[in-house]
C-alpha cells in the first residue's frame, strides 16, 4: 500500500493540483474525532469532486472517514488514526422531489430539517425522525440506519430507501436501485449501505419513498405509576384495531405516547379509543396543535439527553421485562438510567450515567440476560473510556465472517472508516 509521508501542506498542494480534487484544507480542532486529528479535510462541493477526491485518496492509500453533520462521530469503536476527513456538508441538494411519484433523491450532506422544509412545499415528508434534525444528514442517517418514533409506522431508513449513488473505495461511482418504489433488478446495495457506518463505500445521494403529511394529528400520553404497568397496556394497544403512527415508551417516569396522523375524524376516534383502553392503567391526556408539537419537541430533547446511549432491541413482549431487569441492575450498580423508544417494535434507546466501569458492568449483564440471537444492546454514543471497556457492538453472531468478506471485496485495503463498522470491521 502507498503511504504518504508528506506533511499536510504538501498533501493539500498536491491534491489541489489534481483536476476536480478538493476542496482540501488543514484540519482544525473541530475535525478531531475521539482525540484523533485527521491529516487533512476535504469538503467537495459536487459529486464529481467527491468522486475525484476519493480516487485521489485511493491512489495515495489514504484512510478516509466520512462526516455529515458530525452528530454520530462518537458511535462505534474508538476512532483509529486516519488520514482524510471527508465532509459531505456541501453536497446538500435535494436533487429531485418527484411529488407526483412520492419519491425524492437527496444528496448525502442535506440535513433532515432542510429536506423536511423542501418536501413540505407539496405536503410531503421523508418519514424519518431521528435525533438532531437540524444537523443530522441524510448520508449519516442512512449510514447508521437511525430512526425515531415514526419508525413504528413507516419503518427505518432501510425500509424507505429505494436507490443510492455511491462512490467505491477505489474512487469509482456506482449505483443501485433506482427512482421507482418497486424494483427487483440486481442486488440491493442501498440496503447494504444502511447501517454500514461508511465502511463499504461513500454515499453520494439516496432516493427514498416519501409519505404525505396528514391533515390532522393527536397524541395521547398516558402517565403510569411504574414501568411494570406499561407492559399490559402496550399489549392491549398493539392488539387493538388501531393504526397509530407512533407508540413510544418513556421511563422514568413511566409514560406512553400514542400518536395518530390521518384525517380529523379518524384521529379523534382513535385517540378516544386509546383513552378507553388506558383506563385503569394510567392517566391519559390528549394533545393537539401547538401543545402536541411541544410535547414531541420536549420528548425529542429528552431522547438526546446526556450520558451513554445504548440501543436495546428485544422481542416486543420482552421489552418491558428486560428494562425492569436493567433498571434493577442499574440501581444495584450505582448507574442512572432512562429509556425511550418504540414500544411495539421492541427497540428503545437507553441512556446511562455513572462511572465507566459501572456502566460497562451493567451493559455486559444486560447482554448476558438476552437469549442468544434474540436481542442486542449496542452502545452508540459514549465516552471513549467506556467504548474501550466494552465492545460497542456486542456479539454479531455467526454472520460476522461473511460481513468481513463483503468488506474485503468492496474495500480490499480497508481504507474506509477502518475499524469503525459493526463488529469492528
Amino acid at each position: 500500500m502507498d503511504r504518504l509521508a508528506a506533511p499536510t501542506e504538501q498533501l493539500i498542494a498536491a491534491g489541489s493540483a489534481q483536476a476536480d480534487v478538493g476542496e482540501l484544507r488543514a484540519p482544525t480542532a473541530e475535525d478531531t474525532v475521539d482525540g484523533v486529528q485527521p491529516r487533512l479535510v476535504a469538503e467537495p462541493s459536487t459529486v464529481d469532486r467527491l468522486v475525484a477526491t476519493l480516487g485521489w485518496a485511493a491512489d495515495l492509500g489514504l484512510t478516509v472517514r466520512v462526516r455529515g453533520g458530525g452528530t454520530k462521530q462518537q458511535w462505534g469503536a474508538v476512532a483509529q488514526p486516519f488520514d482524510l476527513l471527508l465532509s459531505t456538508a456541501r453536497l446538500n441538494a435535494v436533487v429531485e422531489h418527484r411529488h407526483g411519484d412520492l419519491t425524492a433523491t437527496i444528496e448525502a450532506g442535506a440535513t433532515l430539517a432542510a429536506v423536511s422544509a423542501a418536501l413540505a412545499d407539496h405536503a410531503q415528508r421523508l418519514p424519518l425522525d431521528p435525533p438532531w434534525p437540524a444537523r443530522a444528514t441524510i448520508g449519516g442517517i442512512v449510514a447508521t440506519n437511525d430512526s425515531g418514533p415514526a419508525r413504528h409506522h413507516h419503518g427505518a431508513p432501510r425500509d424507505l430507501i429505494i436507490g443510492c449513488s455511491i462512490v467505491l473505495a477505489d474512487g469509482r461511482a456506482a449505483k443501485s436501485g433506482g427512482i421507482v418504489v418497486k424494483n427487483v433488478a440486481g442486488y440491493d446495495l442501498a440496503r447494504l449501505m444502511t447501517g454500514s457506518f461508511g465502511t463499504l463505500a461513500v454515499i453520494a445521494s439516496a432516493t427514498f419513498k416519501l409519505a404525505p403529511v396528514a391533515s390532522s394529528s393527536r397524541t395521547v400520553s398516558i402517565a403510569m405509576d411504574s414501568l411494570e404497568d406499561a407492559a399490559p397496556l402496550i399489549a392491549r394497544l398493539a392488539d387493538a384495531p388501531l393504526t397509530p403512527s407512533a407508540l413510544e415508551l418513556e421511563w422514568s417516569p413511566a409514560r406512553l405516547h400514542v400518536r395518530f396522523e390521518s384525517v380529523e375524524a379518524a384521529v379523534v376516534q382513535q385517540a378516544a379509543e386509546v383513552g378507553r383502553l388506558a383506563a385503569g392503567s394510567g392517566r391519559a391526556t390528549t394533545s393537539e396543535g401547538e401543545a402536541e408539537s411541544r410535547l414531541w419537541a420536549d420528548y425529542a430533547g429528552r431522547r438526546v439527553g446526556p450520558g451513554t446511549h445504548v440501543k436495546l432491541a428485544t422481542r416486543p413482549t420482552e421489552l418491558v421485562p428486560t428494562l425492569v431487569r436493567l433498571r434493577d441492575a442499574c440501581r444495584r450498580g450505582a448507574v442512572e438510567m432512562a429509556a425511550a423508544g418504540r414500544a411495539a417494535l421492541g427497540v428503545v434507546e437507553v441512556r446511562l450515567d455513572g462511572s465507566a466501569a459501572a456502566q460497562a458492568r451493567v451493559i455486559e449483564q444486560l447482554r448476558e440476560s438476552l437469549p442468544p440471537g434474540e436481542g442486542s444492546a449496542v452502545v452508540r454514543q459514549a465516552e471513549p473510556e467506556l467504548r474501550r471497556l466494552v465492545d460497542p457492538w456486542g456479539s454479531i453472531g455467526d454472520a460476522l465472517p461473511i460481513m468481513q468478506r463483503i468488506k474485503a471485496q468492496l474495500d480490499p485495503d480497508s481504507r474506509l472508516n477502518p475499524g469503525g463498522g459493526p463488529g469492528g470491521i
Partner: protein
Amino acid sequence: MDPQFLAELERIVGPDGIVRDDAELATYESDGLAKMRSRPGAAVLPGSAEEVQQVVGLCHAAGVPFVARGSGTGLSGGALPRPDGVLIVMTRLKRILDIDIPNRRITVEPGVLNLEVSQAVAGDGCYYAPDPSSQVICSIGGNLAENSGGAHCLKYGFTVHHVLGVEAVLPDGELVRLGGPALDNPGYDLLGVLVGSEGTLAVVTKVTLRLLRKPAAVKTLLAAFDSTEAAGNAVSGIIGAGIIPAAVEMMDRLTIEAAEAAVHPNFPQAEAILIVELDGAEADVTALFSLVQQVCTDSGAREIQVAQTDAQRARFWMGRKAAFAAMGRVSPSYYVQDGVIPRTKLPEVLARIRSLEEESGLRIGNVFHAGDGNLHPLVCYDDRIPGQPDLAQRVASDILTFCLDAGGSITGEHGVGADKADQMPKMFSATDLEAMQRVRCAFDPRNLCNPGKVFPTPRLCGEVPGPYRAHPAEQAGLAARV
C-alpha cells in the same frame, strides 16, 4: 453426472429424495417461464436443513453448481436448472416451526406456501401481507429469493419489509443466522441483500416473518373509465390527495375481456377499470373512501361499484388475479412482461405501448399495479405463425426500453433470473454490476450458487478489483511504496 457424486447425494437425502431418471427430471426442466428449459443433472428433495447443508457442502467440495427451487412458479427462469448441476427442490421443507402471536412473528421452513402462512394465523386475527397473485402455490423461500410483492405492496411493502430473520446455508455449506425475532441485530443488513438475490447468495432453510393484524375495516371499489389516461389521472389524484390505498390496480379493455371470459367477475365493459382498496381503522377508511370515490368521479369514472360483501370483493380480486392466465382465452400465446415506471409517466408510456401495438400488429393487454407503477403488458401472439414468437419477444423488449427511458426498471417483481440477465447492462453500468458482483464473490467465490442468473457475465472473484491507476503522488515524489 459422476456416479460416485450421485451416490453421495443419495446417501444424504435417501433413495426417495433423489431424482435421476431423465424422464422424471423433465418435471423440473423449467419454472413458470416455460420458454427456457434445461434438464438438471440430478434433483434432490432434502427433508431437513441438515440435508440441505450437506448437499450444498458436497456440491461445493465437488465444484458442482446447484440451483434451489421452491414451487417453481417464478416467471424469470430464476430456478432454471443446470445440466451439469444439482437442483435442490425445497418442497419437503414445509413445516411451520413457531407461531408467536403476541409478537406477531411466525417461523417457517421455506417450502411453506405463501397463503398457508396467512391461513395458519387467520384464527388469531393476523395475516402475512405480501400477496403475489400466485400465493396459493408459491413458496416463502421463492418469495424471499424474488422479493415478491403483490397487489397490496403499495401500502405494506415487499417481502424484504416482512422478513425478520433467516437461517441460510452459504454456498460453501456454512450455516448462518441473519436477523431474528428481535429487530436491529448489529451488523451489515445482509437480510436486505439476501432478499431478492434470486437464489444466488445462499439457500434459505428457515424464515422468520412479520405478521400483521387484520385491519378493522376494508373497503374496495371498482371504477370504470373511458380511457386508460382517465384511470391514470384518478390514480395520481388519489395519491395526490395524500391517500395511500392498500391497493390500486388497473386493467385495460383486453385484459378485462380476457378475465371476463375466464372467470366471469362481471366487470363492466370499459377501456380501463381501477380496483382501489382501502384498509385500516374504521374512521380512516370511511373518511378516505368517500374521497377516493370523489377523485374517481372527478377523473371521469362513468361507473363505480363498491363491494358490499366479502364475496363481492373476492370477485373483484378474482378477476384481477386471474388476468395473466385468462389471456389464454383471447390469444393462443402471450408474453408476460414486467417493468416499472414512475407512476406519473403512465400516460406517456401507455401511449408508446399503443404505438408499438399498431406498428407490430400484435395486441398488447395491460394490467398494472398502478399505485406503484408496475406494468404487466401481455403481448399476444400466435406461435403457429412463423416469426410471431420472435416479434413478440422484440415487442416485449421494446416495452422495457420505454420503462427505462421513463426512469424505471426492467423488473418490479418477476426478477431478472435467466430471462433478463442480458438486459441488466441497459439499466446498470459496468461499475454498478461489478459492485454487485463483488458482493456475490463474498458469498460465492466459486460461482456455484445458481450461476448464470441476474448477471450477464460472471465475474471471476480472483480478479484484482478496479482499473489500474497511475500513482500521481508517487510520480510527484510525494509518495513512497512501503
